[in-house]
């Protein structure tokens, strides 16, 4: 059993996102990048599969800001190999192109399962799991909360609307968009990541020159027009608390 986990770096959305001069991308120069939270979940689920059925886990990332941290972090957590596809350029990479690059690499790898995050904060032209599955001509399932591999098939739990969860059986190989792992992603200390950095090598492989245009024109990015915005309560914690209590009282919602 070989499980591949594509991981991706996304701008930390807690930061201020400034736009580039032409307005079609976020200004990446001073941005903080973090691993896509759903990719962390996919990695955790892959590691759970490894623990229960002895699979080999391979993480793969494109050469993007701070991706080394994600790849070494994955090795420290228990991934068997980490691969970095280099030469992919800078700036926002459409999902179509990302999936074409990964599909080309996957073709030479051999695998049973591809587990990646169900979506990412910078998805605009589709989600990677679905794009990859369709490109590879494989069955693919998104919004998954558990994967159990059993020989040539996997049992998958998929969430539908309103928290309904169904179980599906899918023949392998297959691509899964993970929403949440069966358990919270494991924590790994900085010292373990440093160890991985010293011992485990990240393999660098030139990225395929895949095309993969979105087929649309991104006119511009913009901050949402604030049709409605909260009235901001000014002052220190005490003053703000006072105002909030008044608001709650005015609604008749203070108990007793």
């Amino acid at each position, binding site marked *: 059993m070989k499980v591949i986990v594509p991981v991706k770096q996304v701008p930390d959305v807690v930061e201020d996102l400034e736009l580039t001069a032409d307005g079609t991308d976020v200004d990446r120069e001073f941005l903080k990048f973090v691993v896509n939270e759903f990719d962390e979940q996919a990695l955790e689920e892959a590691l759970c599969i490894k623990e229960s059925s002895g699979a080999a886990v391979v993480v793969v990332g494109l050469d993007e800001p701070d991706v080394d941290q994600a790849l070494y972090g994955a090795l420290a957590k228990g991934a068997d190999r980490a691969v970095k596809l280099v030469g992919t350029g800078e700036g926002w990479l459409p999902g179509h192109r990302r999936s074409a690059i990964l599909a080309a690499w996957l073709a030479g790898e051999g695998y049973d399962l591809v587990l990646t995050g169900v979506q990412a904060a910078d998805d605009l032209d589709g*989600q990677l799991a679905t794009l990859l599955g369709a490109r590879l001509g494989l069955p693919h399932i998104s919004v998954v909360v558990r994967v159990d591999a059993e020989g040539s098939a996997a049992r998958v739990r*998929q969430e539908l609307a309103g928290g*309904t969860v169904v179980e599906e059986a899918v023949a392998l190989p297959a691509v899964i968009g993970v929403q949440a792992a069966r358990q919270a992603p494991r924590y790994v200390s900085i010292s373990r990541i440093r160890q991985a950095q010293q011992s485990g090598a990240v393999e660098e492989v030139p990225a395929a020159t895949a095309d993969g245009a979105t087929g649309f024109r991104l*006119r511009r990015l913009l901050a949402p027009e604030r049709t409605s915005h909260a009235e901001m309560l000014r002052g220190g914690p005490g003053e*703000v608390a006072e105002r909030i209590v008044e608001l709650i009282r005015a609604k008749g919602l203070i108990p007793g």
Partner: protein
Amino acid sequence: MSNDVLVLAEHQGGALCTVTFELAGRARELADAWGGQVQVALLGASNLAGQLGSADVVFTAEHPALADYNPEAYERVLLSIVHARTPRLVLLSTATAGLDLSAALSVGWDAPVVSSVVGLSAEGEGALATAQIYGGKLLAEVELAGSRAVCAVIAGSFPAAAGRRDRPPAVEAIDAAAVLDGLRTSVTGVVTAEAGDVDITAADVLVSVGRGIGSRDDLEVAEELADALGAPLAGSRPLTDQGWLPKSRQVGKSGVTVKPKLYLALGISGAPEHVEGMRDAELVIACNTDAKAPIFDVAHYGTTVDLFDLVPELVKRLKP
């Protein structure tokens, strides 16, 4: 090619989902602007076709593999429909089916796809889609100038009333048997959810906590406030995924929709999937240290005071 707009109907528990009417209503506007038809694909639930009166034609398909939602079966049938009918635009929601299918249609039908759409209008022969990106912090304006496109639309973006019309649409049954041969995915069962300890949809007041709380231990801080208000604790998805709160306390797209008189959001960013479940609360007060957090766009009142400074002050004033 055509000027038609095709909508994927979503149904749950034997009823059409509200978002389907939202999409049908917007499809009507676009189809009228382009001079085309509104078409709806309704799989595994032909009995509901009569409710889709805003469509010119409803394509229905019945097959054992369509009895339950099966992503592979849906993908194959939809692909066969778009290849045969060549609509100008296909509309899905961003629910599970949209995440499974919209990008797959893009690849399989060679059409651009736009994710997380919240606005959509005709622009001459083409369309302009407005989509959320970066957790709702930014919008992207996307020009769809070609002869085909797919949009995955966030529920609540368009009025549902525009998609409800009391007249029977034409119905065309499709024989899907041939394309459903040799499926590699099958639905094997429904996992019954564990019963929740409290029904947060019934509460007048909710104290709702997000990742800003930082750790399980610090959840106590919010619990104290909830107690003082006589309210249950609710939360965003990351908290239930971590197991810090039971799943029944999750507000949002994959949790429950709540409409309390007061929704106190602590350390919640206001991602679209969360907002979907609480935007109709009567009074929303949000505490988030990031002044640009999208939660402030749905909140009535907001503060950027640190929740760990604010909550004790609130408790002090609420506890006699």
